[in-house]
Each structure stands twice: as structure tokens, then as C-alpha cells.
């Protein structure tokens, strides 16, 4: 940032303050990747619901209009969960370069 000594309008002072905070911010470096959570939860849900589908009772099937909805939903959730984990594996979070060094 250019540093001139004339007083700046409030908006620019705030913008400067935000830039300072952005440099000290830890979210980018330390926040875990949400894909891990989505993937994990959907794999667990997928397994549980698929098993419920495998052991579906006659009554369950009749209620869901002869669709084994637990089985299909479970498999779909499992695929979604695995897809998120594979995506995470293929393009892992790249920790951004330490901005402080680059700027100073």
C-alpha cells in the first residue's frame, strides 16, 4: 500500500484496518476443510441407511410405494460422501503463502 501522510476519508482508513486484519487472519491457514466433514457424515449416513435398506421390512416397502427408498437413498448418500473425500484427496487445500512475507 502506498503511504501518504494526508488525512484520508474514513472509508479508506477502515479499508486499511481491514487489510491489517486480513494479514493477521488465521482462517485460511487453520480452518479445516469442510469437504472432510460433508464426506465423513455422508459416508456414515450412507452406510447406516443402506443397511436399513438391505434389511427393509415388507411394511417399509409398502409404505414407500414399493420403492426400497432406504437402499437407494443410502447408496446415493454413500456415493456423495465418497465423492467429496475423493475430491479432497485429488485437490487438497493448498495453504496460502504466508502473506506477511510476500508483502513486506
Amino acid at each position, binding site marked *: 500500500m502506498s503511504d501518504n501522510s494526508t488525512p484520508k*476519508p474514513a472509508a479508506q482508513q477502515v*479499508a486499511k484496518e481491514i487489510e491489517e486484519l486480513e494479514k493477521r487472519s488465521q482462517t485460511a491457514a487453520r480452518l479445516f476443510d469442510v469437504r472432510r466433514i460433508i464426506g465423513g457424515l455422508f459416508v456414515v449416513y450412507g452406510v447406516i441407511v443402506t443397511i436399513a435398506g438391505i434389511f427393509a421390512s415388507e411394511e417399509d416397502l409398502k409404505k414407500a410405494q414399493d420403492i426400497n427408498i432406504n437402499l437407494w437413498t443410502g447408496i446415493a448418500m454413500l456415493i456423495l460422501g465418497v465423492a467429496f473425500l475423493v475430491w479432497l484427496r485429488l485437490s487438497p487445500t493448498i495453504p496460502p503463502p504466508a502473506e506477511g512475507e510476500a508483502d513486506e
Partner: protein
Amino acid sequence: MLHLAEGLRLPTNGLDYTLLGIYFAVVLGIGFAARRSVKTSLDFFLSGRSLPAWITGLAFVAANLGATEILGMAANGAQYGVYTVHWYWIGAIPAMVFLGLVMMPFYYGSKVRSVPEFLLHRFGPSSHLLSSVIFAVSSVLIAGVNLYALALVLKALLGWELWISIVVAGFFVLAYITLGGLSSAIYTEVLQFFVILAALIPLTVVGLKRVGGWGGITDTLSGEKGGAFMTAWDGTGIGSDNPLGANWLTIVLGLGFVMSFGYWTTNFAEVQRALSAKNLSAARRTPLIAAFPKIFIPAVVVIPGLIALVMEPTLGKTEDGLQYNDAIPVLMRDLLPNGVLGIAVTGLLAAFMAGMAANISSFNTVFTNDIYAAYLKKDRPDEHYVATARWVTVVGVLIGMGTAFIASSFSNIMNYLQTLFSFFNVPLFVVFIIGMFWKKTTPAAGFWGLLTGTAGAMVNYFWFYKQGVIDIPSDQGANFVSSIVAFVVGSVVMVAVTLFTKPKPAEELAGLVYGTRSPGEPEPPGEGDDAWYRRPALLGWGALILAAVCYIPFSF
């Protein structure tokens, strides 16, 4: 409000409760894990402006996909038929695209932390304080309404006592927002988005099979309700009668322009998600990425409403029978076996909690940043404001719990909520749109436009509509008209005041009005942001065209 009928108790079992319990544990885990990323107030309020566009985009759509929205839009489907698609294709998409393509460079580029803070820079302290206070009060009230709606639904579906649901859900929201700030709110919203889809898609599939597919619905309902019920525009000529109580002009201007632009472009609970994106390109893409799921949500919300009406023709007919709001719970009860049923209950509960969390996380930002730090305790170290924000969250949730108990004394809060939006969001939108595009607009004009626009909407609602001075057939129709009134009054006052007061010097408006640029070097584009599928213009126009194409099958 959400009056769910007796006898809606769901046949849940241990399997369903296991799925629900896992979700609660994961949400708490997100709170604890996100805690270590919170170092500065910027981390707490805006996730350090560091999130990728697909996350902020899904959070943007999920923050709106609260359970009141899901149950309410299914109810509208059952009550008004296919007209309900207007809330999506004309009442959301154009505004979302406008936010991304036109407004976001000013919001994100000026580096403001909140919507009221933008008003501080553009106009000055009086409009800033007025809009901050209005926003803080309304978001706590809405959080309370969400909490109360959640408690009512859980009482009907699972038989939990009201106070247990209010305290348990309030506690979980409190815990994860206090720990992780906006990052936990956004992560939970993304998770909720997938869980609610995992509930609604199977529900729609099984429901369609039950009623004989789309053809079955059309045959049955066209026969019972008349052909217009299954179309988007039939019967909306000026002067003709339709269940919505609105003609094409009030739909396009009231819902499609002022109400929806007011909600989507100036409601901080939404805009905050975009402000947390990692760069300007990601911020612009946030509402555009959100627009695509939004186009298809009617398929899993409005269609279940229609299915419920076919299966239970008595829906909404009697006072103590099933109500329109029961549409989705009825389908859950009648069609879903244990397992998927647990996912559906979890999805609804998650949607309620995420809706409330969006209100609380925007409330703590505006209160701490725009009221406390701006006017009460200035120039403290940053750590002080992080600690304050955590306490504000605690207080906000506790007040929300309190207002939840107050909310139980109102009879129909769903419509009342929409009325509040017309009071507070539309005038704010007027001030924004004129202030952004007309450089001469003065600070005084901003303040008086906001105040008189709000007053105008209230006068229309409480006097013209409630006292019967003009004839409007329904609450929804009245909300559309109030919005138009607020828009017209606000803009006329702003123009008039501007002509007699002194504008801000041009150099203070750099980056805040159309045609100017933020001072300093433009930030370099992020890696890969120039890929063709990431171009905002392409995404925005694509969404508009897709929404228009979706109208075709329902228009002729």
C-alpha cells in the same frame, strides 16, 4: 404461525434418533474445530475473508433455505398452486444476479464488514446507526420466531415439549457460533444444504410414484381447482381473480423487483456470506452459484406441496384439520420408512437451526461492529471486540429464546414476517440503489429516505390495508403493495431532499458509487479465476436464461 395439526406424530424409532444424534455431534465438532481458526475479529465476523466461492455460494442459498421457508413454500404450493414458482424464478434469481454482477464490486471492493457499514461510508453516521439498530432488533426477533417454529414442529412431529426444544436448539446454536463465529455458521449451512436435499429428493420421488407422476397431479388438481392452478400466469390479468390475490404487475414490480431486490441485495444475513469470500471474483460468484440450486428447489418443495394436496384433499379446509403448513410433515409421516425418515427429521431440524444461526451470526457482527465499536467503545484492541462478539452471541441467543416464548402469543407470524421484510428491507434497498447510482445523493437524503420509506410501508399496511381504505384481497397481495409504496415514497423523498442539501465531496465516494473505483491497486485475480466457467457474466446471464426457460412449460 406454523399450526401443525394434532395426529401428525411421526413413527420415529431408535434408528432415526441415532441419525439425529450423529448430526448434533458433528455440528458441535465443527464449532470446536473452527475455534482454533479464530484469531482476529475479521475471522469471527467474516471468516477472515478467505472462503472459496462454492462454500459461500452454498451457504448463501442455505441461509435462505430455512425450515420456515421449506414448510412455508410447500404450503404456498398447496394453497396457490404453481404460482408459487414466482417466488423463485422472478422473486429471487434476477435479484441474486444483480447482487453478483452489479452490487458486489462496491460491497466487497470497499472492504466493508457489514451492510450498515457501507451506509456509514456512503452517507454518514445517522443512516448508519438507524439501519444498524433496525437490523439488530429485527434479526433477534426473527431468530426467536425461527426457534419457536422449530419448537412447534418438534412438538407435533416428535412430541417434545416446547421449552425443551427451545432450550436444546438454542444451546447448540449458541455453542457453535460462540466457538467458531461465522466459519461454523457457514460450514453448518453447507452441511445442512446437503442433508435437506437428501431428505426432500426421496420424499418427492416416493410422493410422485404415489400420485401417478406429474400427469397424475395435473389431472387431479386441474379437475378440482381449475386449469389455472397448474400454470404460472393464467388468471393474473389486472382485475381478474386468482388465489394469490395479485396481478402480473404487482407480481413483477412488487415481488420480482422491490421485495426480492430488497431481501436478496441488502439483507445482511445473506450478504455476509458473500463478504466472507476470499477475493472479489469469489464474492461476485457467491450469489450466482447460489442461483442455480435456487432455480431447482421448487422441484423438491413446491411439488411435495402439490402431492400433499392430492393425497389429502382436506388440507387447509378446516380449522382443526390438517393445515397447508402440514404438507411436508404429512408426506414424511405417510411415505418415509425409518431411516430416511430420520434423515428428513434431521434435515428439518438442521434447517431451523441454520436459519436461526444466520440471524445470530449477522446480529453479532452488526451489534459489535456497527453499534458497539462505532459508537459505544471505540479504539479498543481487536481482542476486546472478539470477546465482546462472543458475549453478544450469548445475549442474542438468550433474547432469541425469550422472544420465542413471546412469539407463542401471536397467531399467524408467517405472514407477519414477510410484512416485516417489506417494512425494513425495501426502504434499505431504495437507499442503496439510489445512493449507488446517483453520485449527488446527499447524506441527509439517505437518512430521510430510509425513515420515510419504512413509515410509508407501515402506513400502507396498518392503515390503507388493515382499515380497508383500499381493497387488497390477501395479506400476500398487501405485502407486495406495501413494498411498492415504500419504494416510491423512499425514492421521491430522497430526490427531494438531495435537491436541497449538500452532497459529500466526490473524493470520499471513491469505490462507493457506480462509475468510481476503490483507491489503491486493484487486487490481482486469484489463480484459475479466469477460467471460462468462473466468469461472473456467464454465470449470471446463464442463471437468468435458465429461470426464463423454466417458465415455458407452465406458461402456455
